[in-house]
């Protein structure tokens, strides 16, 4: 399922990008307008039917009125500009409230006027958001909610962020480019409703005749409705009329002449857009169906019939990535209604839209969890409504009631959200009632119906909610979780988004959290993914990364040397771009390379130090230094670093350590260490006869190579398992190991197993000598091994050398309760270390901070 979704999603993204450019242009004006909007407000409304709108504006004079003028202003703008506005509006609408959806639906039905109407609506919503924030606060509950999201979203589109970034953004983009299929790009929740509305405005352009057919009044009414809904306090006669009209319109118009037009428009727009992507959508449709079925058996049935529309919505929803399954589910019900276009009345559609908007509101208002839950609930409610096929009003009311009803049975978070929603809804309702006599009547009716309905639905809703929630949680636990973070990231750039998507994809199968070690990067056998034709990673770095991943280059010293060599090559091939500072640009270009190495295998501390050194060198290059000279300087610096710290350091350490070794000593060491070999060699050269015990682990058995080399040197060697050293400890006179890094507090990070050797040494009163270059000193303090560590390939543990049990746990990844862990490092507490042999001298562990302070303060202190 996932792969098809991904492919589908990607396509929409691309489109969205293209659109984004357009939308960005379009959107940019909108922010500018906002301040000026109120001024323009009354005048700009170009829509013919909107005469009503301007009137309310003056009347209202309140917060929302400025909005209407804003709408007018955008309308005055070029069509392209309008479209982006619409998109923004639609998004906001979705967020805002039920009444808006209804308006939108009617709006689309009407030809040209609807455009203006939609735009107006958008403006109203926008105005609260963009314009007077203070007004927003005073405004109704609905307005503030939309404002915050709108403001956020509005900024991203301007920035030209990828559509993926945020749902709202996506909607905007989709709307903006009329050519593109609006449905796909529409936002999740309001997608179906908004889509319809958007389509209509869009469609009208291509098919003006149809639009003309629709009565202009409806659009104006719709606009007024929106304004009314948004402005509860403002009670204008016009508004009242508009509100009542709007509601009535939605039903009557849709049912009447407008229905046919509307349907045709929709069908045309949808089909045109949809058909192209039908194939892609089909898969999504199936997905949605499954989801729907899971959520609600009966309700799903109706949805099943209409697959294509669902797919569209799903695409729009999925647009961001796989995570969005939950939103798709929420959308699915509305989509189903949209699917039924021909079959079902507009009322239903409107109801669904309202439901979606409510859901969006809830999401925005409440916490993430609450959002998901609300969506589910709304979805349920919508389904129920569809079944009953009640009138729009009733449905709307039921929506509110349902949300309220659900409150008692559900969790607190949900309750709070619901209450907010209900309050908002009520507020809108009240505004309507106050504004118009018809509205009042209707409201009364609604209230009655609601009371009845609530009683009926309460039981149903509870049951269904419980069932569905359980089912949904089970079915899409990851989706819900993932989706929430995505929302947060809307504002972030595309790159981040992609990264996240990839992560979520990769995590899919292996996202299990190892108890106690969940903070460590899980081992993956695959190298980090790179974009195709990515030229940011130097080939030498890439090669090295893969080598380190496969442990061809292993051991901290080897990794440091080869890393520096690769980076030297990188610097050699580097060309400073025009009008760029070498030090800045190079440091910037170095980052992805380092990140790649880190992605292949988590950096060793020594590597980190070396790279810090290099960065320090790069940063300290004079800005006016010629490139060739700078590169030369860097290369020499790297060479000197390797020569001084590693090559010379090793020989100095060997001579220092050889001084500690006496004739006849039995040295216990661990695994393969070139440095220890050097020490033994140096000791032999000084004429000391030593024998060496090599402790080894099965993963990897590097000690075997060590034993071979030592025995070739003529040294008496013993080969022991790391767990078995206690039996030979009584013979051992010194334990000599090499460190991977030494911490500020004297703790020694070594290959896993070093610490148990130290412990054995201490219990047998044997000196534990650690060899370490000072460039591996780290100004970090570690007191245990698990905080900073690396996870190795667990499969190497699974395929153990034992004949009987090799591969017994091959399928451990399928077992929920079983984890296989292969730690790479451990940390030996300073109290177990007798002496630290560095190239400077033989030191106690307490001297580490002194060395760091004296030699590496400039490098290590940087970060």
């Amino acid at each position, binding site marked *: 399922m996932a792969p098809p979704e991904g492919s589908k999603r990607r396509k929409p993204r691309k489109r969205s990008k293209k659109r984004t450019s357009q939308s960005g242009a379009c959107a940019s004006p909108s922010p500018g307008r906002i301040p000026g909007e109120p001024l323009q407000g009354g005048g700009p409304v170009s829509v013919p039917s909107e005469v009503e709108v301007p009137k309310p504006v003056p009347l209202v004079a309140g917060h929302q009125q400025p909005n209407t003028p804003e709408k007018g202003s955008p309308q005055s703008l070029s069509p392209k500009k309008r479209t982006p506005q619409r998109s923004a509006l639609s998004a906001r609408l979705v967020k805002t409230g039920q009444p808006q959806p209804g308006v939108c639906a009617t709006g689309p039905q009407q030809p040209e006027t609807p455009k203006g109407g939609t735009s107006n609506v958008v403006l109203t919503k926008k105005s609260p958001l963009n314009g007077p924030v203070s007004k927003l606060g005073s405004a109704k509950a609905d307005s503030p909610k939309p404002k915050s999201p709108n403001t956020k979203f509005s900024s991203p589109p301007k920035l030209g962020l990828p559509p993926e970034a945020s749902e709202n953004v996506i909607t905007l983009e989709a709307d903006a480019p009329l050519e593109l299929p609006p449905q796909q790009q529409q936002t999740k929740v309001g997608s179906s409703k908004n889509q319809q509305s958007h389509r209509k405005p869009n469609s009208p352009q291509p098919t003006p005749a149809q639009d003309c057919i629709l009565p202009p009044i409806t659009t104006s009414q719709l606009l007024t409705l929106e304004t009314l809904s948004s402005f509860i306090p403002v009670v204008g006669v016009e508004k009242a009329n508009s509100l009542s009209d709007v509601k009535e319109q939605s039903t009557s118009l849709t049912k009447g002449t407008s229905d046919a037009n509307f349907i045709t428009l929709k069908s045309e727009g949808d089909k045109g857009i949809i058909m192209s992507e039908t194939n892609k959508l089909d898969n999504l449709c199936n997905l949605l169906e499954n989801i729907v079925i899971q959520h609600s058996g009966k309700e799903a049935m109706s949805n099943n019939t209409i697959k294509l529309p669902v797919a569209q919505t799903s695409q729009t929803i999925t647009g961001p990535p796989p995570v969005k399954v939950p939103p798709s589910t929420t959308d699915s019900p509305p989509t189903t209604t949209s699917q039924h276009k021909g079959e079902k009345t507009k009322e239903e559609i409107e109801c669904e839209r309202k439901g979606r908007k409510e859901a969006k509101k809830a999401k925005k208002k409440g916490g993430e969890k609450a959002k998901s839950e609300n969506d589910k609930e709304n979805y349920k409610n919508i389904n129920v409504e569809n079944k009953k096929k009640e009138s729009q009003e009733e449905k709307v009311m039921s929506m509110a009631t349902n949300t309220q009803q659900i409150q008692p049975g559900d969790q607190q978070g949900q309750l709070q959200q619901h209450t907010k929603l209900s309050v908002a809804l009520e507020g809108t309702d009240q505004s309507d009632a106050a504004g118009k006599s018809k509205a009042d009547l209707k409201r009364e009716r609604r209230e009655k119906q609601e009371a009845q309905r609530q009683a009926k639905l309460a039981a149903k809703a509870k049951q269904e909610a419980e069932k569905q929630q359980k089912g949904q949680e089970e079915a899409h636990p990851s989706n819900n979780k993932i989706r929430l973070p995505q929302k947060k990231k809307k504002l972030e750039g595309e790159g981040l988004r992609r990264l996240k998507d990839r992560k979520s994809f990769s995590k899919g199968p292996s996202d299990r959290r*190892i*108890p*106690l070690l969940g903070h460590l990067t899980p081992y993956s056998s695959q190298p980090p993914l790179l974009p195709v034709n990515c030229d940011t990673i130097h080939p030498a770095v890439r090669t090295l990364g893969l080598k380190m991943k496969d442990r061809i280059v292993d051991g901290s010293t080897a990794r440091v040397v080869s890393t520096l060599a690769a980076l030297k090559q990188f610097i050699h091939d580097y060309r400073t771009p025009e009008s760029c500072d070498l030090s800045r640009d190079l440091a910037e270009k170095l980052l992805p390379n380092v990140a790649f190495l880190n992605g292949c295998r988590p950096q060793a501390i020594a590597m980190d130090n070396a790279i810090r050194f290099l960065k320090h060198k790069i940063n300290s290059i004079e800005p006016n230094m010629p490139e060739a000279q700078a590169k030369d300087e860097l290369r020499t610096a790297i060479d000197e670093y390797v020569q001084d710290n590693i090559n010379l350091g090793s020989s100095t350490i060997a001579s220092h350590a050889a001084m500690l070794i006496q004739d006849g000593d039995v040295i216990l060491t661990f695994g393969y260490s070139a440095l220890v070999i050097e020490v033994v060699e140096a000791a032999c050269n000084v004429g000391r006869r030593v024998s060496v015990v090599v402790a*080894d*682990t*099965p*993963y990897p*058995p590097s000690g*075997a*190579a060590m*034993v*071979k080399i030592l*025995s070739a040197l003529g040294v*008496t*060697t*013993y*080969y*022991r*398992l*790391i*767990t*078995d*050293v*206690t*039996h030979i400890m009584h013979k051992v006179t010194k334990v000599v190991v090499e460190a991977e890094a030494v911490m500020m507090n004297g703790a020694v990070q070594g290959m*896993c*197993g070093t*610490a*148990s050797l130290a*412990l*054995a040494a201490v*219990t047998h009163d044997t000196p534990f000598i650690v060899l370490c270059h000072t460039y591996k000193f780290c100004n970090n303090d570690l007191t*245990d*091994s*698990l905080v900073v*560590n690396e996870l190795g390939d667990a499969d190497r*543990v*699974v395929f*153990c*050398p*034992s004949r*009987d*049990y*090799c591969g*017994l*746990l091959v399928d*451990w990844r399928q*077992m929920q*309760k*079983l*984890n*296989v*862990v*292969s*730690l790479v490092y*451990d*940390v030996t507490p300073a109290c177990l270390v007798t002496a630290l042999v560095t190239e400077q001298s033989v030191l106690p562990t307490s001297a580490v901070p002194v060395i760091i302070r004296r030699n590496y303060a400039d490098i290590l202190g940087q970060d």
Partner: protein
Amino acid sequence: MPWETTPCNMVQRVIKIVIDEYNTCRGASDGGGYQGFSQMMFVDPASGDLPECTDVIPELQDRILEAVAEHKAEVEQSQELIALQGESKIHSDEVIMTCGMCPMVLAFLTKAARRRKFHVIVAECAPKHDGHPMAKSLCSAGIQTTLIQDCAVFPMMSRVNKVIIGTQTVLSNGGIKTFVGAAPLASAAKFYSVPLYVCTPTYKFSLVSSEEVNHHGSGSTIVPQDSNLTSSVNVVVAKFDYVPPENVTSFITNNRGIAPSYVYRQLSELYHPTSYDL
């Protein structure tokens, strides 16, 4: 198999049973015990002071058979009795470390898992690697299990609440002779002050003292397959590890928990002094 102490333990146990039965029979007929308890305490094991069981007691055979059957039942029940103590030794959300495969420990943990939720870290126990089947059994019993390599015992020990292992033999000094890898495990536990429990039935209590612990196995099992080490390299792997009594917190036996320092008393109850040098 000189390292197997359990058969010897059983023989000594049966001797003790026979002598006890003889004494009770005589005591019943005589009115006085052949050897009072106070007398037993003063028997010199070195002299091999076997009681002179010359009396003919017709019902003795039946009674001995009965007692031996009883002992057999006790041995058979020992695992179950040990497992029953799981709940009293493990609290919820604990992290337990164990090493290698021991049916006694497995039963103990499995039983405890019915009432407690905890996490078990299994060290694979290098030369034998029987931590793998142990991990499999534990996770199939519904216990959160993590398998680690042996050298990760020390790093992981800092997060462990209890170490529970099985043993081959409990030595007379309170130490244990057990699988290779237990010594570093126990010293790591000691380093981090983690209690180490040893699940052992009483029939594993042995009169053997610690000097006889070491038996070396074939080194070929530990040499990596693809590496052909020269014959000059000394490759050896021990069969057992010796964990000194100071690293053992407590023995979980089928009777009760026994501290290592109290093992001697248990031994004097289990075996007759005359069989100490058997």
